């Protein structure tokens, strides 16, 4: 397994060009092309802001400006959820490669996660514009945590993507299940509401949800005033994510030989 992980490094050129291909192919033929990477999060933001700020005015304390608060959570969530959604089917749709070409299968879910990460990065300039516009209380030291949060999310997402892609080959039901599960997951994460608003019994539940800590970390670093107090949780999640990734890779490796027959 470790040797496989090492050879994965040799495939970085392949991963790189496949990510580039994924991005190029996605908007090929559309009028706005790459701009969709900016427009999509912006539209999402507008919809959520409109719904939660004007229709359902159930705003909690300290989430003003609400649009910015929302954006800090939604942008990384979009990366996470679309990665999971897409990677569930990626081995099946890439079946031709697995069956007909000697091809390291794990490249496919990894490429999915990375391509979505690039989309996430494209959304960041818009976030920056919002941060400046709303004069968010940013501190340079806190901002140093930002790449750490991204790294933890990357490892965690990779773990989920590997495990989901491998299992979906055998249990196609996962694809359908996952779409619903992700909706539930979204609402079970403090993205559209702040952590404090959750009822006490829900807080335990939220703590078990790994994405809670990512969302809180993003919000504390970018949105809330004051020191980044959630870093212990973040580091713990980081360790968990690495362990989870290794576990996921182990599962993937075990199932690897069955892919060519099952997809």
């Amino acid at each position, binding site marked *: 397994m470790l040797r496989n992980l090492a050879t994965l490094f040799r495939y970085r050129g392949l991963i790189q*060009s496949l990510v580039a291909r994924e991005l190029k192919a996605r908007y090929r033929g559309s009028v706005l092309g790459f701009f969709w990477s900016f427009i999509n999060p912006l539209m999402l933001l507008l919809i959520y802001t409109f719904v939660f700020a004007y229709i359902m005015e159930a705003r909690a304390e300290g989430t003003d400006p609400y649009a910015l608060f929302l954006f800090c959570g939604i942008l990384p969530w979009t990366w996470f959820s679309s990665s999971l959604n897409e990677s569930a089917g990626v081995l099946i749709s890439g079946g031709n*490669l697995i069956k007909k070409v*000697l*091809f390291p299968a794990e490249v496919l879910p990894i490429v999915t996660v990375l391509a979505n990460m690039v989309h996430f990065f494209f959304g960041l300039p818009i976030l920056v514009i919002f941060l400046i516009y709303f004069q968010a209380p940013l501190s340079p030291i806190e901002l140093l945590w930002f790449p750490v949060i991204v790294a933890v999310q990357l490892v965690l997402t990779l773990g989920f993507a590997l495990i989901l892609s491998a299992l979906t080959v*055998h*249990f196609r039901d996962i694809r359908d299940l996952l779409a619903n599960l992700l909706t539930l997951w979204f609402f079970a994460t403090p993205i559209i509401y702040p952590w404090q608003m959750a009822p006490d019994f829900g807080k335990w539940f939220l703590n078990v949800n790994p994405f809670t800590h990512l969302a809180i970390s993003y919000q504390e670093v970018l949105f809330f005033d004051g020191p980044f107090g959630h870093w212990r949780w973040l580091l713990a999640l980081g360790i968990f994510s690495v362990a989870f990734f290794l576990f996921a890779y182990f599962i993937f490796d075990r199932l690897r*030989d069955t892919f*060519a027959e099952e997809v």
Partner: protein
Amino acid sequence: MTNAIEIVNASKIYQRYGHRRQFATLKSALLSRSLVRDLNPTETFAAVKNVTFNVLKGQTLGVIGRNGSGKSTLLKLVAGIAKPTTGTVKVDGRVSALIELGAGFHPEISGRENVFINGIMLGLTKREITRRFDEIVEFAELEEFIDAPVKNYSSGMYMRLGFAVAIHVDPDVLLVDEVLAVGDEGFTHKCLDKFSEFKRRGKTILLVTHSLGLVEKFCDEALWMDAGRMKVQGDPKRVVGAYVTDVERSEEQQLAAGDAKARDATISVSPDEPSSAVLPDHPIETAEAPADMFRATEGRWGSREIEITAVELLGADGIAGHVFHTGQPFAVRVKLRAPVEMDDFVIGIGLFNAEGVCCYGTNTSLEAFKSVRVLGNGDVTFSIERLDLVEGTYKLDVAVHKLDGYPYDYHRLLYTFRVKSRTKDVGIYRPAHAWSFSPTVQFVKTDDAEPGEPTER
């Protein structure tokens, strides 16, 4: 010399589909360490069974066999795409597998970008591809279209580009699975030239193909796979010969079974009640000949005052069969029975090709034999010294009738045989012939075909 490919006792066993639950539970699937072995397969299918062979460096091995004999699975095992269920497969050096061309192409992006990504997938670096890019495009003959998205390519263009990339990977071991069927004649020749170049440079090639001529011409060794097992391995000519003989034998069986079926259908209706049990589209038996002889399908009719009890087709060695070779002797032996003595009878033979064209027809009367008498059982043999027909399937009419045409027993197209030829000439009839050239017109004889000559196997 060292082995480039070494396969020891390899088997590949597939589960048959139909039972969806492969793992008892997700948990047990994840916890048990032997996922594949613990499945208790209700039905398994061995695509490749106990195969052991080596290919020396620089050798070309041709793999032949019928559909579903495990050729492609074998290739996948060598390519590393599939893992053997038992046994080992060792390959020395970089492998490029031409199994499905352009398998990794993304339809939305241009041919140029696909060449790069496909090349990287096949193990090249970006720099190597840049260096070979022009060569690849030129080989694929796609200079004009290389910047168009691949989804707009014709299937031929798609395959050519896939082939061009795969062949420029510069592998030590090249695996080819029946891909020469793509492209036109010119492209096929180019591919063959490229393979020859590989051979010259001492690369190892494993070729799966149905083109037996290619195996004979091109391979150092051949392997015949049958039902997942190795049947024969060795000299290409010998292996191909054995394979062809086997294919003929099974064709023979099919034709014999078909003939028997046609005759059974006619015999099931007794001559006393003609046309009472008429089944359309089935060989039927009537006392009267059909109105239009040339449009009649298989059937049997006649009064049976003289009965044809059996018809045998005899080959060169005088043995009855259904598959014959062009240029070889051929004979039709008709067995007759006349319960009562008869003096007015003619025996006729008609030979038809698959399209129903009469290739030849004759009878004893036309050839100035005047009937004297027949009683009891007897044989009539119609011999052809050389069966000069082109390759194809032929049907036979055999009849006994009165001089005025009144049928005793008419067997219409009830006997089928196949003519095989190594020369793929066309038409119906192959006159014995020869070519000669003046010294200014030069040819080299390849051993592909022997026009006008009996073929030897």
